[in-house]
C-alpha cells in the first residue's frame, strides 16, 4: 500500500474500522507523517463528540462497583518504550519505581545522558528515601505523565538535570558531582522569570548528589539557576550562577 493510500486511512483509523494488519501499517506510518498525526488528533476529537452525543445517566450501582474495584486495583507506571510493567507492590516502592521508570523514559529521549540519568535517578531515589515526604514530592514530579527533562554540565564536571511537569506546575532539580558548598554557604535554586530571579529554595548536597523539588510553581519561568549563597539563603542571587538551564517546553 503506498503512502497516498495511507493518508486516506485517518478516518477509518480513528473509527477503529481497519482490520488489524492495516491498523498496524497505519500506526507505523503515523510517527513520520505530521499531517496525518494532526488529522488523527482532530478526527479522534470529533469521534469524541459522537460519543458524548449518546451519553446516558449511568446507574449509581456502576459507580459503586467501579470505586470498590479501584480501591484494590494496581496502577501501571508511565509508558516505558518496549517494556510493559505490571503494578507495584507497596506504595513506597511503587513510587520509587515510578521515578526510575520516568527517568528511564526521559533518558530515552536524551540518549547520551541515559546512563547518567539512570544512575542519577537511583541516587535521587536513595537520597529521597531518607525523607519520605520529599521522596513522594520528588517522585511525583519525576513520574508525572508529562515530565520532561533537560540535562547539562556545569562547573568542574558537575552535571544537572531539570525535570519539569507542566500539569503539576512543578520542577525538580537533580545534580551530581557537586562539591559540598564552602563553610557557611549553601546552594540555592532559582527560577528565571522574565528578567528576574525568584528563589526556589535551598538544595542539600550530600555525597556530591542533590535532588530537590523546586519550591513554588513554575508560573512563567523560562529557566532555572543555581548559586552559592550565605547560609540561610538570599532574597536575590549574590553570586554568579554555577549553572543556568532553560526549561523544556
Amino acid at each position, binding site marked *: 500500500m503506498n503512502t497516498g493510500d495511507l493518508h486516506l486511512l485517518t478516518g477509518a483509523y480513528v473509527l477503529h474500522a481497519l482490520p488489524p494488519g492495516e491498523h498496524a501499517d497505519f500506526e507505523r506510518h503515523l510517527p513520520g507523517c505530521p499531517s496525518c498525526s494532526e488529522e488523527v488528533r482532530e478526527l*479522534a476529537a470529533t469521534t469524541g463528540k459522537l460519543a458524548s452525543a449518546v451519553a446516558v445517566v449511568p446507574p449509581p450501582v456502576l459507580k459503586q462497583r467501579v470505586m470498590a474495584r479501584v480501591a484494590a486495583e494496581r496502577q501501571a507506571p508511565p509508558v516505558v518504550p518496549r517494556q510493559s510493567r505490571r503494578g507495584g507492590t507497596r506504595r513506597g516502592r511503587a513510587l520509587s519505581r515510578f521515578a526510575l521508570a520516568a527517568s528511564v523514559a526521559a533518558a530515552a529521549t536524551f540518549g547520551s545522558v541515559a546512563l547518567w540519568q539512570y544512575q542519577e535517578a537511583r541516587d535521587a531515589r536513595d537520597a529521597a528515601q531518607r525523607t519520605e515526604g520529599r521522596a513522594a514530592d520528588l517522585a511525583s514530579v519525576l513520574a508525572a505523565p508529562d515530565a520532561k527533562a533537560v540535562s547539562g554540565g556545569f562547573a568542574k564536571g558537575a552535571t544537572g538535570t531539570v525535570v519539569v511537569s507542566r500539569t503539576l506546575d512543578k520542577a525538580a532539580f537533580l545534580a551530581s558531582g557537586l562539591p559540598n558548598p564552602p563553610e557557611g554557604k549553601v546552594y540555592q535554586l532559582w527560577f528565571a522569570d522574565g528578567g528576574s530571579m525568584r528563589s526556589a529554595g535551598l538544595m542539600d548536597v550530600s555525597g556530591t548528589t542533590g535532588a530537590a523539588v523546586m519550591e513554588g510553581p513554575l508560573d512563567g519561568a523560562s529557566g532555572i539557576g543555581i548559586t552559592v549563597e550565605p547560609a540561610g539563603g538570599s532574597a536575590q542571587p549574590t553570586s554568579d550562577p554555577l549553572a543556568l538551564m532553560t526549561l523544556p517546553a
Partner: protein
Amino acid sequence: MKAAVHIGGPASAGPDLQELLGLVARGDQNAFSQVYDAVGGSVLGLVRTVLRDPAQSEEVAQEVLLEIWRSAARYQPSRGSAMTWILTLAHRRAVDRVRSAQAATDRERRAALLERTPAYDEVTEQVDARLEREQVRRCLRALTELQHESVTLAYYRGLTYREVAELLSVPLGTVKTRLRDGLIRLRDCLGVCA
C-alpha cells in the same frame, strides 16, 4: 451550513480532566471519582450504543473505567485531550467485544445491522447532553447519505470498513474516503479543535 457550533458539556472540560488524570496517575481515588462523574455517562452510552446488550455494556464500561484508573499515567497530552483518550479507549474496548462475539452471532448481527436504526435515538435522554446531542445530530444531517451511513455504522456499530462496504454495496476505496471526508465535515461543522 458552514458556521461552526461550539459545544459545551463534558467534552469541553479538557484542562480539568487532564489535571485530574495527573492526580489519578498518582493513586488519588477522589480525583478518580471526579473523572468518573465527568466521563461515566459518555463511556456507558457509547459502549451501550455499540454493544446494545445492557448487561454486557455495563461490564465493558466497568472494564474501561478501571483501565483509566490503571493506565492514567500513560495518557499523553500531546496526542489529544483527556476526554478523547478516554472515549477512544472506550470505543476500542466496545469494538473488540463486538468483534469477539461476532463469529457466534454473525447472522443475527447482520440482520440487526440491516435495520440501521439511528443509534442516538435509542438512548435515554440526559439533560446536560441534550444541546450537544442536537448539535451532533444537526451536523450528521449535513453529511451526504453515504458519509452518514459509513460513519455511523463504523462508529456506533463497530463495523470494519470492509463490512461497511459489503453492507452498503459500495467499493472499499469509496468507504475509506467517505469515512475520512465525513469525519472532516463533522469536525468543521462541530468546530472541533484537536
